[in-house]
């Protein structure tokens, strides 16, 4: 058996705090928030990504991930989420490397757009005030977010994802203990 490490020190309060951070990040796209400070998840999983999954994933949310056996065992123990091999069946997808194509994830339907998947994408760093120009609901004029280590061709895939509104995929970007969200309503232009 692999070495398991503990999850949240206080499961109720810590997951509420993380939920609050994700809610804030989703309603203010591109804003960078802290999450998962006290966690020690197995590599290559970052603290923020771990906190997001511990708070949101459970036995009812199939999870797709590319982070290896140790992370899989850790998430299975602490969240109890079923692990699926096909990204299209996942409610949450965790990508620490090259993510699956956004179009390959669950998109929801016109009647039930909320069934679109959420991609937790781990990147190198998140910086506000430079880089991409974000516009859309929750942003007064524009918000600038620099994402170091974003996958190649992400902006083109995002434009296609945006075009399918109300269907589509939401993304939570995580780097270390910081996170920012890209709900499907946001429009991204190159900086």
């Amino acid at each position, binding site marked *: *058996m692999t*070495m*398991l*490490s*503990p*999850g949240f020190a206080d*499961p109720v309060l810590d997951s509420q705090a993380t939920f609050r951070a994700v809610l804030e990040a989703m309603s203010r796209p591109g804003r960078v928030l802290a999450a998962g400070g006290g966690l020690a998840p197995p590599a290559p999983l970052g603290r923020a990504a771990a906190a997001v999954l511990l708070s949101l994933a459970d036995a009812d949310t199939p999870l797709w991930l590319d982070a290896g056996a140790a992370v899989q065992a850790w998430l299975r*123990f*602490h969240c109890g989420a079923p692990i699926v091999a096909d990204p299209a069946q996942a409610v949450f997808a965790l990508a620490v490397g090259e993510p699956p194509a956004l179009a390959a994830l669950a998109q929801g339907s016109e009647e039930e757009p909320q069934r679109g998947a959420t991609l937790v994408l781990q990147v190198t760093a998140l910086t506000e005030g430079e880089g991409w120009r974000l516009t859309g609901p929750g942003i007064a004029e524009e918000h600038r977010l620099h994402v170091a280590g974003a996958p190649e061709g992400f902006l083109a895939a995002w434009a296609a994802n945006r075009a399918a509104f109300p269907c589509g995929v939401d993304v939570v970007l995580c780097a270390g203990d910081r996170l920012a969200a890209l709900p499907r309503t946001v429009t991204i232009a190159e900086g």
Partner: protein
Amino acid sequence: MTDTEDRRRWMAVLARATADEIADLLAALPPLPPHERLRAPETGLVMVRGRAGGDGAAFNLGEMTVTRCAVRLGDVVGHAYVAGRDKRQAELAALLDAALQDPARRPALMAKVIAPLAARQQAKHEAEARKAAATRVDFFAMQTTR
């Protein structure tokens, strides 16, 4: 890997013991090294399901209060699910489950903790069965004596 049958047996014995019983027996042994809580003891409900006649359609019998805990001792993980809301019992049971998976510790713990607990539970079960048997009503006998 530990023999599943053995593990099932000691988990059952620990789940039926009280925290004080386990702690008293453990106190007589050399102390175990410190453990890490992977999942602190937490109380919740589980739905107990049954089948009419053993093979009928499944139905929900009712909910039951259960406390669970998982600890790590070295690189072994011990689990416990116990009825009720005694968090100390759940943690002690999980700790012992981890310790019992270590072949070096198992013989002493089996002899000094699990065996006495099992004997006590067996004796209690038999005493209750005897008490119940003493009040048994033989309906056939009543018919004939009337």
